């Protein structure tokens, strides 16, 4: 599904991502974990074309996407849930979901998908006509995920979905991510909360100062003493 080869990202002279290679196969959930400043978000931003990569190739479904403009990604089946939620605060929840379907022209199916989103997120249905800006952080995160799914992507890119949320809400968000994945979605999960991310994923990559230093099955990584010491606080 997604193949990243030798991806480099630089801010001015500083290399944030130093030629990383990884892949995500169709239907699997892959976690990209690491500490603050390891280059995770830069990687995701480059994938979502919000940043220009300094080098390397990104292929999705066999097609090179590293030179596409960001708004074309959804047409390639890639949807981003931006860091810090990024809902449209002065639109209602339904309007936010409709924006996710901006490039679609099948009104009936869009309506059905909104109902499907409310199935994932019953809390949002209760507040359907409420302004997104008045939602709690967790609800906004749910809405951001729902909006991304409204574009009917094949690959969902999640940037730090647990950031700034109460622990209980983090659990809820990850439940949703797992159920979305169980319905067949391919997910690339960038997360600081290594335990939850790995528990929800099939495979994982560990990033340190711009490089991938460890990779393997999520279960193996969870058992790995280095990961346990550095990221699981043991």
């Amino acid at each position, binding site marked *: 599904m997604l193949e990243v080869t030798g991806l480099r990202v630089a801010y001015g002279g500083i290399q944030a991502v130093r030629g990383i290679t990884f892949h995500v196969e169709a239907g699997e959930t892959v976690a990209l974990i690491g500490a603050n400043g390891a280059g995770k978000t830069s990687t995701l931003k480059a994938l979502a074309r*919000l940043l220009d990569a300094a080098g390397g190739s990104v292929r999705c479904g066999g097609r090179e996407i590293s030179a596409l403009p*960001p708004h074309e990604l959804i047409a390639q089946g890639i949807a981003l849930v*931006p860091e810090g939620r990024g809902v*449209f605060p002065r639109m209602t929840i339904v309007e936010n979901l409709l924006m996710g379907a901006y490039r679609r022209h099948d009104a009936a199916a869009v309506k059905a998908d909104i109902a499907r989103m409310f199935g994932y997120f019953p809390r949002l249905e209760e507040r359907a*006509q409420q302004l997104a800006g008045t939602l709690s952080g967790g609800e906004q995160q749910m809405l951001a995920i729902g*909006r991304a799914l409204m574009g009917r992507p094949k690959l969902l890119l999640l940037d730090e979905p647990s950031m700034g949320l109460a622990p209980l809400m983090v659990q809820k968000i990850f439940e949703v991510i797992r159920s979305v994945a169980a319905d067949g979605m391919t997910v690339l999960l960038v997360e600081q909360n290594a335990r939850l991310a790995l528990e929800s994923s099939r495979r994982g990559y560990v990033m340190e100062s711009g490089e991938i230093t460890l990779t393997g099955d999520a279960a193996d990584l969870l058992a790995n003493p280095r990961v346990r010491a550095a990221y699981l606080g043991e």
Partner: protein
Amino acid sequence: MSFLDRLRHSRRAALGATLFLGLLLAALPFLVGNGLGNSWLRILDFALLYIMLALGLNIVVGFAGLLDLGYIAFYAVGAYLYALLASPHFGLHLPVWAIIPAGAALAGFFGILLGAPTLRLRGDYLAIVTLGFGEIVRIFLNNLNAPLNITNGPQGISGIDPIRLGGVSLARPMEFLGFTIPSLHGYYYLFLALALLIVFVTIRLEHSRIGRAWVAIREDEIAAKACGINTRNIKLLAFAMGASFGGVAGGLFAGFQAFVSPESFSLMESIMVLCMVVLGGMGHIPGVILGGILLTVLPEIFRHGAGPVQQMLFGKVLLDPEALRMLLFGLALIVVMLYRPAGLWPSPTRRREFRGDAR
């Protein structure tokens, strides 16, 4: 249930209100002309021009959230195009139906010219660049009289052709079914028709995919990109659409005044139009129209009223009404912004947000 709610829920009430409003708008020049005199009729005509400007700027500032402090430049482009193509200055006398659309197109092009280099800018940075753009246009108009005299410099262009519709000049009283319709009335109806057209276009845009994309960009540009919105094109479209309304208003202004000079397009004018949008209710069409009317009419009320009121209170005129006018106007702005921060007539969404209601 408020009056507006009743309108929304009853077709008959809505129809009645529309009919009443239509009759009022049709009769307004006669009421104003006979009751208050021709100077107020001119003010009414100007109010319509300012409504067009405010609606144009509202697309950029209110819908797309791009702060533009040089908007009056597009008004200038429309006005000067009319002045150059229909005046003795170049000896050209093109008809109005050719010039106004050309003015809209040229202003739209200037809008893109401003928008293209500023795509990455927002908020205060964008405000400074647009401010500079407005001043550049004004200074160009001021100085394009040498070596080749294009704009006639600070003297401006005079003797501009009045607007003629179907061979009838609006500058002279018209005979119609035995009635004499004064010139200012003719301009009023023309401006009203175009203002209504612009209102219609704006309403349609607001509820279109484009309108939703503008709002999405205003709310969160990265999320808008992630939704598949081509933010570059949609922003440029906002600049171009907003500018083209300004170009139309500018052309009408030139024909109406029969004279244009760079003085009419100062930064103060840009700020005035911005005030109309903000004070009326950013992004809310009825609010912006209200803002346009109030900010055209209020300073004139102060100008005309300040003298007599002082005479009455103190027996003499202590302060020059002209100076007092802007003082009172500034005070009015401050009071409105303190007590109605979302504007006089904000959209229901914004009102909710400012009240902090959950629903």
